[in-house]
């Protein structure tokens, strides 16, 4: 089951540059929420705040609150939090020194799980969920780097799922992929929302329209509008949302 997130007065800085200016947002469980907006609007910073990855960058600062299932994430150990909030990055980034199998179970194994049978079960289950099992089941010992870009990204998704998070953050997961691979990833996102709460940052508005239940439009570090995707795309409340969606800027 996915979990709900509520974001309250979230502000973030990178150096002296304020990238998020008081975001308030409720994120429903088992929903796909798309974050759209022009480059530099703070959408990546926003998802990176949710797993406390933003604060690992030198010179960064965060204020405000994010509540995951009633608990403030800033009161938790970030290492523990990140097991509950998984992340998939823009560019596929499998661990180069590891095989496909080792990549998938990396999170579980490096956190102490030794039982071989359990690890194998986790690997198969995660790869199946990421729709990659049939393509790699005969070459689990090959390097993760031997896969195509789209397969590498699904490997990264499998790797994130293997730690059994409740929220999955995806930062433009398909922007480095070709249309076929993108289609695979999108199909996957639609299936995964059965079990996970998903936030997906995207530059591609058609993609948001295709897969997201609700969409949030960010501009200059502010949340301009957040609502059901159909409403945002057909009947936005804010003039700026309409201008962005119809391609007048951005």
């Amino acid at each position, binding site marked *: 089951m996915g979990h709900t997130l509520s974001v309250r007065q979230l502000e973030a800085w990178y150096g002296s540059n304020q990238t998020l200016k008081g975001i308030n947002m409720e994120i429903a469980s088992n929903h796909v929420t798309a974050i759209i907006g022009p480059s530099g609007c703070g959408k990546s910073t926003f998802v990176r705040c949710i797993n406390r990855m933003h604060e690992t960058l030198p010179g960064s600062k965060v204020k405000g609150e994010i509540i995951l299932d009633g608990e403030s994430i800033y009161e938790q150990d970030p290492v523990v939090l990140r097991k509950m909030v998984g992340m998939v990055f823009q560019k596929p980034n499998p661990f180069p*020194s590891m095989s496909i199998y080792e990549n998938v179970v*990396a*999170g579980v194994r*490096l956190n102490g799980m030794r039982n071989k049978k359990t690890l194998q079960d986790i690997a198969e289950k995660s790869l199946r969920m990421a729709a990659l099992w049939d393509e790699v089941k005969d070459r689990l010992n090959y390097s993760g780097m031997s896969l195509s870009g789209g397969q590498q990204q699904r490997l990264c998704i499998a790797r994130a799922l293997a730690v059994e998070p409740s929220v999955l953050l995806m930062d433009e997961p398909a922007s480095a992929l070709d249309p076929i691979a993108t289609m695979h990833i999108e199909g996957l996102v639609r299936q995964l929302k059965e079990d996970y709460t998903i936030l997906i940052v995207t530059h591609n508005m058609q993609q948001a329209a295709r897969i997201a239940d609700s969409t949030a439009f960010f501009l200059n570090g502010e949340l301009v509008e957040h609502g059901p995707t159909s409403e945002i795309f057909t009947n936005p409340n804010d003039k700026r949302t309409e201008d962005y969606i119809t391609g007048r800027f951005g």
Partner: protein
Amino acid sequence: MNDIFRKYQNWLMLIVFIIATIIALIPLFGVLGYVLKNGLSALNIQFFINLPKAMGLPGGGMANAIVGTLIMVLIASLIGIPIGILAAIYLTEYDRHSWLSTVVRFATDVLTGIPSIIVGIVIYTAVVLKMGNFSALAGGLALAIIMIPLIIRSTEEMLKLVSHSIREAGYALGISKGKTILKIVLPTAAKGIITGAMLAVARVAGETAPLLFTALGNQYWARSLNEPIASLPVQIFQYATSPYKEWHQLAWAGSLVLILMVIILNLVARFAFRSRSI
């Protein structure tokens, strides 16, 4: 008209580059060829198994010097490689932008350029005089001090080549920073780090000056690490500057063995551990 001039110029410059390359290669192959010519004739099985004979007598070998060099290089590696790698991990992973790491980085650059004889004098004063005798330990320590900056710099470069996104992927899985470095970043850079360490070992294997002050040399087997010990470079130096023809021959053989050791280390570093996937 212009076209002809450009082609002519192009042709002329190409000739200049080729000549410069040939001039650069002549001494390199000259040295190798000379050592090979003089060394091969003196090289035989006795050289590897016998101790040096008394002055002027034919025969004899450098078995103790070969073993001495290996022992001191081993001591230097045991001290220098872990310290160098651990310091590089601290500098790149934990403290990349602070003033401390800037200072350390500058210091390692300076230390890389310091003549090795100075390291020898320092160890002579700080260790040999205090302990009262020349020793393999002091020699190994001097070599380690020459190795450390080389290893820090090469390891640092290799760790910097590991993309930041790999580290973030580790953190995002709920893996702690320490484990991410140890189990993900280091294995990714391992081949390059090993190559750098082996090149540093090859570099110090031929050092003479620091060993003159620290290990001194020995005509016999050293019975412990705490007494003077022979080494190839020092033995070569002593034999080549002696007035005996037989010793000159042995010095050439020693030079050949030393060059071969360094070449083999270089080849192993470059081919066996050639970095394929960073």
